[in-house]
């Protein structure tokens, strides 16, 4: 009944070579994003969100590489594409914005030039045409006085303005998929709220799908309907956002939500110590063989140590990887 998803990731493995060893940094990750859908990927720093995103557009560098798996974009396996095919896709059908726009923007070119370049590269516009389109694109991301701002260099703009420029570049060619990797992490909350609203409006209008990556559950709850929780390179749970917050299934998700201070809680109740998750996040070299959360898990039994749990289906396409979920 439902149309095939825009993006389907099947059993993605990302390996890291370290001397003779091959470490499974990301293991067996599967999820899909429908047309016009915003899918959230949450997890703590180092759990593999960014490298998962980079693997989608063929930008993984040594020592990292895709070990196995399929990445189907409109039914085509991106992992089988050659360099020039991928380049044509990037920026055009799939584009990406990052946490720190300063690293992605060219400090020596005006922002207008950098937006215009997208139209020249991907739409065959003349530079003259492209510059006109760049002004319109800046207006769309609500930069005031866009005809003047196109002449600015990145360092002449605030962090929030630069992120708007990045969005203008990313959405210039009306891509099918926008990958947003921590797009507001470096911004103040009030600026973050504006940027999120802008992204939501523009992507809604155009039916752009979004892969929203964040360590901030609030950002995810605001932007996404479905969300995947990553822990140490595993996708441990994939749920509708509302279900995830009401009935987290994986012990990690459960612990994480219980450990957060909740706004308003202290007004209702006297302050109690926050619930802690004991232990530390394992490092790549010390990943457990079975469930990677096992050393910190209060529900763990011997099987958890030996074998990675397969997905247990929870309904409406949700799943959790845990022998003791609930």
């Amino acid at each position, binding site marked *: 009944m439902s149309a095939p998803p825009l993006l389907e990731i099947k059993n993605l493995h990302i390996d890291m070579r370290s001397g003779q060893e091959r470490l499974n940094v990301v293991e067996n990750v599967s999820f899909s994003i429908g047309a016009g859908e915003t899918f959230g990927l949450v997890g*703590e*720093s180092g759990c593999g969100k960014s490298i998962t995103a980079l693997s989608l557009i063929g930008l993984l560098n040594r020592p990292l590489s895709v070990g196995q798996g399929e990445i189907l974009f409109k039914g085509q396996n991106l992992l089988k594409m050659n360099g020039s095919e991928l380049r044509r896709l990037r920026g055009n059908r799939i584009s990406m914005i990052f946490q720190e726009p300063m690293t992605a923007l060219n400090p020596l070119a005006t922002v207008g030039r950098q937006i215009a370049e997208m139209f020249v590269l991907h739409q065959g516009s003349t530079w003259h045409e492209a510059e006109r389109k760049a002004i319109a694109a800046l207006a769309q991301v609500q930069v005031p006085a866009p005809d003047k701002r196109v002449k600015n260099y990145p360092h002449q703009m605030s962090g929030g303005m630069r992120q708007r420029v990045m969005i203008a570049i990313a959405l210039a060619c009306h891509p099918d998929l926008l990958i947003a990797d921590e797009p507001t992490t470096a911004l*103040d*909350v*009030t600026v*973050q*709220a504006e940027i*999120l609203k802008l992204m939501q409006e523009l992507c809604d209008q155009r039916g752009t799908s979004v892969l929203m990556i964040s*360590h*901030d*559950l*609030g*950002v*995810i*709850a*605001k932007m996404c309907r479905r969300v995947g929780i990553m822990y140490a390179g595993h996708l441990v749970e994939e749920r509708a*956002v*509302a279900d995830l*917050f*009401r009935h987290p299934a994986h012990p*990690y998700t459960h*612990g*994480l939500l219980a*450990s*957060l*201070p*909740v*706004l*308003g*809680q*202290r*007004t209702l109740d006297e*302050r109690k*110590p*926050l*619930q*802690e*998750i004991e232990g*530390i*996040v394992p490092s790549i070299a010390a990943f457990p063989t079975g469930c990677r959360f096992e050393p910190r898990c209060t529900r763990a039994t011997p099987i958890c140590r030996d074998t990675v749990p397969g997905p247990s289906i929870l309904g409406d396409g949700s799943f959790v990887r845990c022998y003791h979920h609930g």
Partner: protein
Amino acid sequence: MVDQTLLRIENLSVCFPVSAGLFRRSHQAVRAINNLSLSLHKNECLSIVGESGCGKSTLALTILGLQKPTQGSISFDGKPITGAEQPGRMQRARMAQMVFQDPYASLNPRQTIYSALAVPLRLHGLCNQGEVEDRIAATLKMVGLKPEQAKRFPHEFSGGQRQRIGIARALILNPKIIVLDEPVSALDVSIRAQIINLLLELKAQLDLSYIMISHDLSVVEHMSDRIAVMYFGQIVEEGPWQSIFANPVHPYTRRLLAAIPDPFMIIRQEDMTRKDMQPPPLSGFSYYPEEIGTHDVYQSPPATEFLPVGDDHRVRFIAR
């Protein structure tokens, strides 16, 4: 009534002169702190919230004596600590210490934890080897580390453990005040609760006073006794945590609170934002700034008054 004030900041201004080559008028200066007054009470956690660039770090450095005030004064326990009567470095170190956002950047990678903690003790005249060891062991235990871990180097610890080390270093000289600059925002989300709990325990146990800089308002609500909202070098609103969250008055505070993406709130009331839940704004007052984000850091702000609107709750209005 006993005076509960531990630290009093009065009419503090800090300006950074701009180098003459960049601007034609060489007397121009960035006004990082503008005539700011604020008090810290004994054993309270006072949180300072505000946009980046509003002067939070400058304020912290000035309190620690690492930045000279351009104008104004700071006193500790009733005695001035700025100007002619300011105490020496050593005495100052026992008044206030700082915990940094990134524990790794603030530790010397080539120094064991033991030396990192022993150096300040020796500087402060604790020379007996046994006493130094005891003090270090006791401090490490206090922050949830084992004394034998002192032999290790910073890279051998996880992020959460490093922040415990950062806290141990701040505590080693028994200061009265700890300035916490974004103490948990660089940590793994699943580790934050451990550090937040630890900080609250230590505050009660050691009778500490905290000045916490944070942009995470759920952490601020959980930890604070009072909150000061800072905007371009001024405090625009200040009050007990309950009043700030339940009854924000200044437009900037209201905007800040409305912008929080709180997951539980979003899930519970899909169509309601925090803004809808705020009481209606006070009418009949004008505020600076009318339009947020239009402030010029080279200009002094217009005349304003800091007026009470409730118990211990004050708001900055345009002077009439």
